[in-house]
């Protein structure tokens, strides 16, 4: 379990993390989503005791991270995949962590296999690793102590589509066994593919939170017509709040039924009418993060 309670951190008077509260329960994969500079990393660093909150508190497994006697055996942490000594071999980096937390070094080879780093790659120095390989090494490092909680900052950054599928499988499996996962990303499609709960942060504030279904059901209807202008008039005529969607067409704050009726009323032929789903989530993310989720925009 991971908890953040009214967590606040200021740098030079500016609140980088502002009154952030959320919880991650065992058995779930929570995606921590926000643009670069939104406060994701600072929040995760406070959870792991690297940074002291100015107010509020953060905890893991019911207590402060720093209180854990041997944290690697309870919580797997990957705060920055590039934070490894370039002159050290990949396998050795894992062996050091294993030795620090008192885990049998044999487990290192199991993990190298699990994250798909071949023997030849494991022998290379980390300096020669691609970002994707560093991410895999970082995930292996987080898993060495057989933790029950995983805290991963931008773990999908640098992974190819196959790598993303692999990570999704790995984290889902981890959660299904009762583990708790918090992973951050600045890309919606990454989090969307991996997480089942979302916490969206913009300018240091939580702007939306919930299961994917909850957020999707809020996201309205996506409708398209060849004659966009006519459709716009028809929607306005029916009194429906609509915005142009990023991908063309309109996002409407209403059920598909009402939107269809409005189009019929305006005599417009539709080419697409469906719950907005992912497109809506994208728009939601875009709106929430660009204008700090000001009220009435949703």
């Amino acid at each position, binding site marked *: 379990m991971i908890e953040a309670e009214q967590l606040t951190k200021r740098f030079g008077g500016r609140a980088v993390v502002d009154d952030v509260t959320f919880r991650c329960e065992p058995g779930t994969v929570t995606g921590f989503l926000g643009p670069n500079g939104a406060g994701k990393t600072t929040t995760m660093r406070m959870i792991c005791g690297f*940074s002291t909150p100015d107010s509020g508190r953060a905890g893991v497994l019911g207590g402060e991270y720093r209180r854990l006697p041997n944290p690697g055996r309870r919580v797997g942490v990957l*705060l*920055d995949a590039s934070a490894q000594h370039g002159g050290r071999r990949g396998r050795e980096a894992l062996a050091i962590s294993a*030795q*620090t937390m008192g885990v049998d070094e044999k487990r290192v080879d199991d*993990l190298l296999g699990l994250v798909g780093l071949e023997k030849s790659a494991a022998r290379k120095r980390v300096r020669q690793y691609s970002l994707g390989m560093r991410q895999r090494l970082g995930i292996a490092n987080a898993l060495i102590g057989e933790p*029950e909680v995983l805290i991963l900052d931008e773990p999908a950054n640098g992974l190819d589509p196959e790598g993303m599928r692999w990570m999704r499988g790995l984290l889902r499996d981890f959660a299904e*066994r*009762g583990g708790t996962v918090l992973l951050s990303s600045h890309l919606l499609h990454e989090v969307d593919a991996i997480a089942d709960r979302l916490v969206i942060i913009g300018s240091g504030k939580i702007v939306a939170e919930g299961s994917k279904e909850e957020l999707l059901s809020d996201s309205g209807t996506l409708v398209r017509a060849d004659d966009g202008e006519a459709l716009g008039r028809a929607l306005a005529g029916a009194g429906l709040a609509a915005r142009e969607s990023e991908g063309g067409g309109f996002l409407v704050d209403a059920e598909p039924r009402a939107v269809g009726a409005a189009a019929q009323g305006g005599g417009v032929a539709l080419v697409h009418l469906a719950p907005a789903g992912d497109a809506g989530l994208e728009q939601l993310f875009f709106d929430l993060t660009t204008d700090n989720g000001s009220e009435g925009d949703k």
Partner: protein
Amino acid sequence: MSAHAIDPNEMTTAAPAGRDRKPGLARLAKVELRKAADTRSGFWLLLGVVGLTLVAVFITALLAHEDQRTFNHILSNGLQPVGILLPVVGILLVSSEWSQRTALVSFALVPERARLLVAKLLGGIVLALVATAIALVLSVLGTAISSNSASDHWSLPLGLFLQDIVYVVTAMIVGVGFGAALQSSAPAIVLYFVLPVAFAALGSIHALSGVIDWISTEALEPLTTEVMSGHQWAQALVALALWMGIPLAIGLWRLTQRDVG
């Protein structure tokens, strides 16, 4: 590639057996010792120290003036690379956690940062003692092959040997201190070499020379060359307290007070 490898069920609610056992200092020191040698730079630096010790020992044993070809003198020269270059390994042991950003991994596993610094000091001290042992063995070999007609050329006063150990161990502690205080490899290494020279230079100012005798690292030079007098010890101890104490105190303060960058 077993699914078991990531089974979080093994640790259900409370901490399962053995998982909440704090890593002992001895284990952490062993890890630090390993970290000093398992990187490319660390490995070559250590090899360089051994190589220079070898060179210093055999040049003294074979080429020095005959009355200098004593075990005691050969060892004194052989320890110079250990006293001068090995502390750089100590510096890197701490500063590379920032320069290479491994602090994010190290402190995640050992959140008590002061404890990690103590482990680094212990690891560094062990390294200094091992290097001393190597210098000792090489000096024995060097003395054996050097020709010296004097009968007492094997003598090494116990006091001087203990001073040798004080010399290398304290040099290592100063190195770790500089690494901890500056948290950055290049400035720490530069200052580690430049500051002693600067202090020695200040000693040439007549008005300051009395004070400088007590705080410059020149007070440490007799450690490997002669059995020191009480006055020399007093000067050396004052200098050591400053050169070890101030960087370590700054390092400890920065480590515990500030957010890890």
